């Protein structure tokens, strides 16, 4: 229950922060990414402000053995740089540059009542499922190949 309240509260701060910083305005985001054109640098302050906070607070938070309302920290464990990381990030960046939304602003912009975020979020979910089934298939193929090698 307490954990659920925290989820709503932190979601609310996140969505409000995205609106206040104008990240949910896709035209602003595209101007920010247009560094060689009429560059709007204000959105640098969004990532700068957010990372400025987490870089300080996470150090203290992660010193405790467990979160205040939970049993453990659910942190990514991987540290390797592999092709899916770089290729995936590259594809994400292309999509961000085309749509002007990344996933967070895509969700919060749904409150604007316009069609763009709705289409974006539906396509986002489809794209994610497409990768999941593609990754599942290639895993199956790999295991098939291994079996063939054993034979």
């Amino acid at each position, binding site marked *: 229950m307490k*954990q659920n309240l925290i*989820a*709503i509260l*932190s*979601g*609310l701060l*996140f969505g*409000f*922060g995205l*609106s*206040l910083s*104008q990240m949910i305005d896709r*035209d602003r985001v595209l101007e920010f*990414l247009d*560094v060689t054109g009429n560059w709007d640098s*204000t959105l*640098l*302050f*969004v990532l700068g*402000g*957010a*990372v400025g*906070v*987490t*870089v300080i607070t*996470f150090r203290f*938070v992660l010193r405790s053995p*467990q*979160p205040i*309302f939970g049993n453990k*920290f*659910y*942190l*990514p464990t991987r540290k390797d*740089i592999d092709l899916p990381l*770089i290729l995936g*990030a*590259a*594809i994400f*960046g292309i*999509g*961000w540059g*085309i749509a002007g*939304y*990344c996933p*967070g602003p895509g969700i*919060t912009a749904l*409150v*604007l009542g*316009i*069609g763009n975020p709705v289409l*974006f*979020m539906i*396509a986002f979910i*489809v*794209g*994610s*499922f497409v*990768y*999941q089934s593609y990754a599942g298939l290639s895993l199956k193929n790999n295991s098939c190949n291994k079996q063939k090698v054993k034979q």
Partner: protein
Amino acid sequence: MTEVNWIAALAGGILIGLSATILLAFDGRIAGISGIVNGAMKFKPKENWRWLFIVGMLVGGFLYEYVLPFEPTPLSSLAPGAMIVGGLLVGFGTRMGNGCTSGHGVCGLGRLSFRSLTAVITFMITAIITVFITHQVLV
């Protein structure tokens, strides 16, 4: 770049950083939105915190746009092609690369993760190149 704009951008960024801090400190969870949406789509009843976080994101946006006395966000004109192609690539790419601007950017950089730094540099570069092509070359 007006003064109000960068103050609002900085304040918004700080709120996003505080949000990620609260979620990690109390619930032990990373505020990575692509991961939260993907997890939410599994509809596991024990893990409904993701849906609540998403509801919170909508409430936060609603308060800004319709309740509190801020200037509403300008509405972008409908661009269905860009939304569908862009959305598909964002969904596919974030699933493949395990994160987006929030998971790798806000949280990953906060954890000083080299993996996340690599991802952030990569997606910033490809996003800038993409906008360069669509805004400067193709016009």
